[in-house]
């Protein structure tokens, strides 16, 4: 059995999770401080990929990154690199669809964070960065971790936008989800079943992790 799809899926999910972690936490931190109207608008825009069909996201991404589109053409001309149909093209898709999960969970965690703790740190002479990394992030740790796991699981399961922007090339852009589709299309049900089982196993482990984190957070919240 060729394990390339598993390896490719995992590295795409891992890289996009790292990106989404920082993007989501930063967005949650800064957007929470904005006036209510701006916050409401940004909230809708940033959460939209969560509810849009993946094909819509894929189409929009192609509009931006395609070799004949402004950004794609500029990158191709300047760096000689095509942004679509490579293994890492899928990262664009997974970042966009996984971002809302990270952003919303982080924002929920930050909103329940007691602002007095931050103010206490600042009146004690500590910088905003110190307060953020040494107090706010540790206090919100459980929520942030849950968001990260959810984002990773979502990135791992991405199919629609990925297939549009990275396509399916065995040994190059194939992921678990695109492989299952291809095997089913070519009537290889046994082959598809193997990957289905692999996928179910990985997803179950991650959901279990989310549940454990959430239970721990609830217990911690009640004990304080």
């Amino acid at each position: 059995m060729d394990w390339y799809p598993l390896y490719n899926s995992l590295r795409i999910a891992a890289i996009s999770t790292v990106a989404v972690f920082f993007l989501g936490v930063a967005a949650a931190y800064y957007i929470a401080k904005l006036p209510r109207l701006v916050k409401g608008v940004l909230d809708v825009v940033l959460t939209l990929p969560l509810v849009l069909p993946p094909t819509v996201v894929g189409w929009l991404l192609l509009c931006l990154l395609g070799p004949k589109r402004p950004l794609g053409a500029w990158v191709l001309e300047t760096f000689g690199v095509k942004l679509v149909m490579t293994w890492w093209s899928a990262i664009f898709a997974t970042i966009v669809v996984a971002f809302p999960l990270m952003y919303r969970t982080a924002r929920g965690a930050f909103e329940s964070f007691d602002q007095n703790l931050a103010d206490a740190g600042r009146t004690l002479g500590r910088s905003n960065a110190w307060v953020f990394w040494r107090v706010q992030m540790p206090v919100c740790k459980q929520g942030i971790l849950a968001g990260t796991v959810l984002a990773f699981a979502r990135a791992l399961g991405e199919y629609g936008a990925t297939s549009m922007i990275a396509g399916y090339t065995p040994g190059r852009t194939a992921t678990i989800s695109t492989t299952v589709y291809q095997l089913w299309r070519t009537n290889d049900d046994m082959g598809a079943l193997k990957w289905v089982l692999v996928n179910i196993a990985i997803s179950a482990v991650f959901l279990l992790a989310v549940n454990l984190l959430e239970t721990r957070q609830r217990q911690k919240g009640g004990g304080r």
Partner: protein
Amino acid sequence: MALSVDIRKKMGDFQMEVRFEAEQETLALLGASGCGKSVTLRCVAGILTPDEGKIVLDGVTLFDSAAKINLPPQKRQVGYLFQQYALFPNMTVRQNIAAAVRDKQRRKAVTEEKLRQFRLEEVADKRPGQISGGQQQRTALARILASEPKAILLDEPFSALDSYLKYQLEVELAETLEQFPGTVLWVSHDRGEVFRNCRRVCVLDQGKSQGTFTLRELFHEPVTEAAARLSGCKNYADAVPKGTSVFLPEWGLTLDCGKEVPEDIHRVGIRSHHVAMTAADAPGAFPCEVQRVIQDVFFTIVLLRPENAVPDAPPLRMELDREDWAKTEDKSRVWAMIQPRDILLLK
């Protein structure tokens, strides 16, 4: 060497105007809930920004809207004791205190010294959630003092505690503050707390400071109704000065004040325990109908209606010993009197 505050801030339809000066003393900010006491403290600490005005601490301008100066909280050297202490829950007691010492070389020494000074050595490696309310308060104070502030702000330090624990912690807090050389602002809505711990009081009413008073001025000679209310006085009536007495139209009473009543007096205040029962023929006695009797823990409250009162007049509240009321024969109609010196003349 002192704190001077003169700020204005609009919050929704609430206009705040606060002005006071504090020396190296414990100055109380006394006011009812929601009168802007916490907002004032937050403006001094730099957590909130006033719309305009000036805040100067020990010669350093912390905020000046005209000169566009607004120091961040980190540079103000103002310690803030939050209502729930705001200890970092992810850190131990020792780490909480160490967090306030920015000088790495001195961090360990200062932390250990504060742990000793505040008797926190035994719980030094515990988290805030695992220690008692008293230990939490000591940790918060130790942390504030470790940051070497020039002023300390106390935001209703005992609001969340039951009365017995509160009393113990109050004694401890007072002892700590006696050692502190700088200015302390003590925000409270509890007049007893203020009376026990402060010499001077700035009264806040609906966002506006009413001036700074000594305890004597506030509790024995309040000049405004807001100050009288905060000092615990419960009876108020409109008043018309008449030479050495006042006429109270609502109650249909003329009361002797024993001295010339200034023309600008429009209200009087009478403390409930200064209303006394007396014999029918005593000088200054007036007949009242008993409207209602309420038993309190250690005394009895009787709501009286002077016989000449207008129909919708507020009741005159009298407080007396339970036994004195029990001994009273006629519990529906009594003769009451008020000593001239006990009538608070208010502007």
